[in-house]
């Protein structure tokens, strides 16, 4: 086995006195798609923020491409190829769609993604290029947020709550972009609430419950019942791990 692209080892993290993650261990191989599943407040977004470097873990290490990046700030990790689509999209509201995408290229990384390719992959964005980001629908905003991260040519793309608050039809449109993104060899970690969609796209699934990973495995080997049980913390599996 080659070294995984991302290895999170025994990570504790939180905000002030509040601890959100407890001894998290996760590995993601190059080219893989890992889906994080869990209830609101389980710590999925916190985990993504810790991987992206927006949040420093209080314990444990984050290794990326064989290198310990635990001490590296978010700026450096972005330049090394970790791209985060943050919770709530966080576009630059006073900039146009195209300008948002152009700022995404500030990582200075070379790769397949440029304006033309983003517009081709995300048709939701293409018709809106001159519009201010503040005046987009939720789905369009999400598409721009994904496009902006792609413009940085990430090797590891972290997608937080892609479908949150969006109509199923819009989410379908966003997900059609995923094969094109993966075709470039990009490794993806995504947070998704919809189990059907998770099983459809994920290579592996990790269930997060109250800041711990309670179940992880290849999507093909897991059943919906197992994942649902882990989601709500009702399954035998969970009881076996929690004291």
């Amino acid at each position: 086995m080659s070294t995984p692209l991302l290895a999170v080892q025994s990570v504790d993290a939180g905000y002030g006195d509040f601890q959100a993650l407890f001894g998290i261990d996760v590995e993601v191989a190059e080219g893989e798609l890992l889906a994080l599943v869990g209830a609101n407040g389980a710590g999925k977004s916190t985990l993504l923020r810790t991987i992206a470097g927006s949040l420093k873990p209080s314990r444990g290490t984050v290794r990326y491409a064989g290198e310990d990046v635990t001490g590296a700030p978010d700026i450096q990790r972005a330049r090394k190829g970790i791209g985060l689509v943050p919770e709530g999209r966080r576009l630059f509201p006073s900039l146009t769609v195209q300008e948002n995408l152009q700022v995404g290229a500030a990582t200075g990384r070379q790769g397949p993604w440029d304006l033309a390719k983003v517009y081709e992959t995300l048709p939701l964005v293409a018709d809106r290029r001159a519009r201010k980001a503040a005046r987009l629908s939720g789905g369009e905003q999400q598409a721009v947020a994904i496009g902006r991260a792609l413009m940085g040519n990430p090797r590891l793309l972290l997608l937080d709550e892609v479908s949150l608050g969006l109509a199923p039809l819009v989410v379908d449109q966003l997900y059609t972009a995923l094969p094109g993104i993966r075709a470039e060899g990009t490794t993806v970690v995504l947070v998704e609430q919809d189990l059907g969609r998770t099983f459809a796209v994920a290579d592996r699934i990790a269930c997060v419950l109250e800041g711990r990973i309670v179940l992880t495995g290849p999507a093909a080997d897991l059943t919906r019942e197992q994942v649902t049980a882990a989601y709500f913390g009702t399954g035998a599996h969970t009881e076996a791990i929690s004291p």
Partner: protein
Amino acid sequence: MTWLSVVVQGMLLGGIFAMAAAGLSLVFGVMRIANLAHGDLMILGGYVASVTAAHYGVPVPLTIVVSMVAVGALGYLVQRSMLDRAMGLGELAPMLVTFGISVVIPNVLVQVFSNDAQPLSVGSLGTASIHVGGDLSIGWFPLITLLAAVAVLTVLQLFLHRTQPGRIVRATADDRAVVRLMGVDNRRVYALTTVIAFGTVALAGVLYTMRQGGVTPYEGQLTVLFAFETVIIGGLGSLWGTLAGGMVLGVAQSVGAQISPDLPLLAGHVVFLLVLVFRPQGMFGRSVLA
């Protein structure tokens, strides 16, 4: 002098206000710092020009460059050594730093150069004028300052909207945490912003000093008011609004002076207050985004 002439003179004066206000607006937009030292930095710019011309024999036009570089470099040092750190401490800390600077500058100037005016003359250019017709004449020098202001604002506008570093500055103004996810060091953006702001205010200060024929240490207390009034009349976040704001303030002062020599400052403040009461977002201000 006819009223038309009064209005034209006011508009020409407004160019300097607009140039001084542009940096104030930029720093507030990007870092949310109300720079209380902005007027004193303007005066410092005038001093640098005056002193290098009088004591080091630098040709007067060249003092503009010297002053912009010197005050711009000071901006880099202030940002890196003080404001960056203060910004980590809360909203109020950076403003207190700028307040401190606004106390230090005039007092140092008094200690070193006394209260006497430091002269800076542009020679015959200061009195040369174009006769337009009737009794309307436009001074060459005020015209040049207005053209310089338009040029500075145009370059700034093009920089912010047509270049990648400019886009990054605007993105940082929108969300300083998210630009970091794009590999952008927001502190470098702050440093660049402050250098631009200090450099342009130094230019405004040199032109102001040339227009007045000299500069005294405490004038910054007045010019900082003009800069704030210009930004608020024009509206935050719009450089053309800043130009218009400067002109409105200039015309108000000029008309006030025509009515009575005591009135120019009061007239300017009254217009400013009226704008604040009836159109608090300013003439061209964009609505603040959530």
